[in-house]
């Protein structure tokens, strides 16, 4: 995993979601992987659900961010208003700063 992933993201930062397809319980849906969005806010740090899913303690905790994506960038045939966004919660290890 690249060293710049995740840490110290601030609201307004532009980020890219890791384009990766690991096995297991992954809470980052396929349709946002590889896409760029903007950090809206930080929720705090939580046990990593990918490790909890394996029966482990989920440590180290991971920071969870709310990320906004432009709908028109997620869906090629999107015909709603240009300003429409999708808000989604993504853990730090899936994000890198653009």
């Amino acid at each position: 995993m690249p060293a710049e992933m995740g840490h110290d993201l601030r609201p307004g930062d532009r980020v890219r979601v890791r384009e990766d397809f690991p096995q297991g319980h992954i809470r980052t849906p396929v349709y946002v992987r590889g896409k760029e969005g903007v950090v809206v806010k930080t929720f705090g740090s939580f046990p990593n659900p990918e490790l909890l899913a394996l029966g482990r303690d989920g440590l180290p905790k991971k920071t969870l961010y709310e990320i906004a994506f432009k709908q028109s960038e997620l869906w090629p045939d999107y015909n709603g208003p240009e300003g429409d966004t999708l808000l989604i919660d993504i853990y730090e290890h899936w994000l890198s700063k653009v």
Partner: protein
Amino acid sequence: MRGSHDLGGLPAGPVDTAPHDMTFWEKQIDAMNTLLAQKGLRRTDENRRYVEMLGEDAYNMLSYYERWTAALARQMIDKGVLTQDEIDAKVAEVRRRLGQDAG
């Protein structure tokens, strides 16, 4: 690549948003789920992983609480709480009690 549960963006029909009551057995599974969590035998993320591992056919064929049931059964086997033989014997006993054919 894409898990059978990861449906965002795929073509689909209209979503049925009508409220519906839970059946008695669904409430029983919900209660068992809570009890197993209190005993430290399952966690939400583990349960989700097991549901996601059911395979595409089972995932699409089973209802929400049927998926929970299948996932819980597999977890309890993996953790040594139950054996498949014990589950099979119990299912056969219930079927006899209800007057259904075994198997």
